[in-house]
């Protein structure tokens, strides 16, 4: 099987689905979404809590509810095919995609453009080198979440959660609702990495203690976890001797960070960004390789799915235009640099049309390095201020999205800087 597609989309999460819809809206005639799980929707299918879609659908949805909306939008469109239970094994730089499924065997598809929307995976115990025994009962929070919410089993009964990111917080509440005892949430940083509303709704409402500046220094148990030793850490995040205490538990859930899933991107030798751990993209979400686009958690980890959809719609649109030969014309490259307290900014570069620079929207998504109150975000090119915006609060856990007004495009030189005025 070797068929020519305008757009091949790898990964059927919200990014892949939104990209497919947008590619269709922008005129692509033959689109395919390839998903390795048994259903579309990505990580959303296991996030049965509320809190999705307020920006994008102007309505509060559950994860599966949001996924359902995305799936409905692409359903019954003859131009869009979907494959589930199908894993992409390899992508070649000529846009040949090799995929495999039990039903269809080994497939070779040919694209005019490819959109990478593979999402992310969870950081593990091994990556953070937690000392101790290696019994059963240590899970990543996402794996446990899938087991509880989709398969209907508990990972254990007495739980400690390491990491206060959103997944950890949401799981603390979930496990409490399931009748389990959540003994503690531990966080190595002096602040939580989760949304404020999640700290209130998931911990405070259930009387679950949050230990900031604490980490696990030993996991106990020969066969199944029997407990952990915890210690306070200093400002360098090193455990302080003498501060150790034990907590009894049979389960440790790790919510210690997400890593964009870029095996395929690395195989393509795409230029990657060291801090986002995703491909470097321009404002169209095109990567360093012509005709390859990327969006969603594979580019940088999002906290809100709404921004994932926004970003994916951009990628879908420009992939379609490229496939249809409508992205011709001379472009000039502008570098986007994160400075002064802004840790990352996506896109990392702009490709500005020389003929019609004002013809498009330029949306920037960024994260700050440390929490701040009442700061100002300033986007400049040389001495020209393109945007200056007060931020009542800025937290590393909450992505900031802004749009550069088209009216300012002619002030843009070779580089844009994105920083905070502290």
């Amino acid at each position, binding site marked *: 099987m070797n068929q020519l597609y305008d757009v091949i989309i790898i990964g059927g999460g919200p990014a892949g689905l939104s990209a497919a819809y947008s590619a269709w809206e922008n005129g692509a005639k033959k689109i395919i979404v390839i998903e390795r799980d048994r259903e579309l929707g990505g990580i959303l299918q296991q996030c049965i809590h509320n809190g999705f879609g307020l920006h994008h659908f102007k309505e509060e949805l559950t994860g599966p509810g949001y996924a359902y909306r995305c799936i409905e939008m692409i359903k019954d469109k003859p131009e869009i095919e979907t494959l589930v239970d199908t894993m992409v094994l390899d992508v070649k730089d000529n846009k040949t995609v090799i995929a495999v499924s039990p039903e269809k065997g080994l497939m070779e598809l040919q694209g005019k453009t490819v959109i990478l929307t593979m999402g992310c995976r*969870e950081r593990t115990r*091994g990556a953070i080198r937690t000392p101790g025994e290696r019994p059963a009962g240590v899970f990543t929070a996402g794996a446990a979440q899938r087991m509880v919410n989709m398969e209907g089993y508990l990972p254990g009964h007495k739980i400690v959660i390491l990491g206060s990111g959103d997944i950890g917080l949401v799981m603390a509440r979930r496990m409490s609702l399931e*009748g389990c005892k959540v003994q503690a949430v531990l966080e190595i940083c002096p602040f939580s990495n989760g949304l404020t509303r999640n700290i209130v709704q998931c911990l405070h409402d259930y009387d679950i203690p949050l230990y900031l500046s604490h980490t696990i220094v030993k996991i106990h148990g020969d*066969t199944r976890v029997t407990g952990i030793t915890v210690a306070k850490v200093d400002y360098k995040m090193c455990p302080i001797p003498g501060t150790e205490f034990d907590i009894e538990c049979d389960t440790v859930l790790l919510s210690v960070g997400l890593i964009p899933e870029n095996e395929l991107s*690395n195989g393509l030798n795409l230029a990657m960004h060291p801090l986002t751990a995703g491909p470097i993209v321009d404002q169209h979400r095109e990567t360093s390789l012509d005709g390859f686009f990327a969006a969603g958690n594979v580019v940088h980890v999002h906290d809100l799915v709404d921004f994932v959809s926004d970003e994916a719609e951009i990628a879908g649109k420009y992939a379609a235009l490229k496939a249809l030969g409508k992205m011709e014309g001379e472009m000039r490259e502008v570098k986007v640099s994160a400075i002064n307290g802004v840790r990352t900014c996506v896109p990392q570069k702009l490709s500005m049309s020389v003929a019609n620079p004002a013809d498009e929207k330029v949306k920037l998504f960024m994260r700050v390095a440390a929490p701040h109150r009442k700061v100002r975000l300033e986007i400049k090119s040389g001495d020209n201020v393109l945007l200056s915006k007060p931020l009542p609060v800025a937290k590393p856990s909450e992505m900031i999205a802004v749009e550069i007004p088209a009216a300012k495009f002619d002030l843009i030189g070779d580089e844009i800087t994105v920083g905070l005025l502290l």
Partner: protein
Amino acid sequence: MEFVKSTDVVVIGGGIVGTAILRELSKYDLQCVLVEKEPDVSLGTTKANSAILHAGFDAPTGSLKAITNVRGNKLYHQLEKELDLDIKWTGSLVVATTEEEMATLQELMQRGHANGVEGLQILTAEEVLEQEPNLQNVKGALWAPTAGVCWPFGATVAFAQCAVQNGAEVMCDTKVLGFIKEDGRIAGVETNKGVIKTKYVVNAAGVYADEIAKLAGDDSFTITARKGEYILFDKTACNSLVYGVVFPCPTKKSKGILVCTTTHGNTFIGPNANELEDKEDHAVTMDGMNEIMTSARKLIPNLPMGQAITQFAGLRAVSSTGDFIIGPSDIEGFFNAAGMQSPGLTAAPAVGELVAAEIARLSGAAKKANFKAALPKTKAFLRMTRTEQAKAIEANNLYGRVICRCETITEGEIVEAINSPVGARTVDGVKRRTRAGMGRCQGGFCGPRVTQILARELNIPITEVLKERTDSNMFYEKYAADGGEE
């Protein structure tokens, strides 16, 4: 105690040594049973070591260690094809960083020659850096071309499978509790499953070999556990570490912290060495990790710590005699294969030969005419060509479903690992046979899926699937709505 069965030989311990002995015994007209206390083979020292098939220049000339090491290494070259073993013949380097250490290399080479090791050579710094460009401070190295790295779990399972296809039996979840003697000689083994009547017993119980020997009335030796800790890196890290096996120059105390590749292209640093009181202490410690990182940095200053994917520890079974303890004891019918610290993995096939030959001689058993040496060949999906992959899926469409995304392991391979002889019964059993869960996400993604496949294939509830050892359950039923457990 209830009687279970009657046999000629009981081998205690399902590590590399016990299974290698079982395989050699299965060449003779002898009924043999291997008993292992854990739910699977290869859960003792054999699961956590450096996996190196040593060339044989370390051990003192004439020692059992030296003899069985050199012979074992030769045998692996032969067994590789027969048993379809995963081995990479990388050769090994002992790297000197000072003139003094260059002198030690000469000593090692001479000892190697005396032990019968072939092909040893001293390399210049330039020659070393050509092989391993990331090493720093190199003066020269001892090159041993016959060394390699193996896949110890795979080898253990293969030895066991080969023995089983020749009539031997493997009983897991079977713990030896005592012995029955008649007129001072071994007559039976007491286990948690009942009594096995037997004429001979081989003690290959790893760090517990002294306790087993004592139960039989042999208190001629003791075993101390000496822990070694490791940090393992993702496959992509080899470009900043090493492509082969690199030892620092040994000191009087140890072979030192090495930087080493695995059969599947991961890299590790370790092991350190710490004497233990507790034979169940497999904990990785903060101090231990710092110790091995500090040592490894002498050879490679910029360790890619961001690419570490797991840490583990193994226990060396150090005997009070200083050498391997192989052969008959003072108790008639009771044999030891004990004190098998490094190079025990390499030596195992040679130890098997020695022990089996001696039992055959004493019992007068003849060699079987129809010993089946070869195991069926299999190939991992990942290592197949696209055409082979397409064919495999056509024959069994479960090869088209990728379960472990990091290592590209398919459901077909997992089902096969469960349903073949000495099959996987646990999540880690699947991992050690197929590599599902050995990649950078360490089973975060595939662990629950493998649990479901095990439950389906073994026809047991998900809640009874184990991670590794008895009572290491993975998942539980949800609480019923009224608060009680369902």
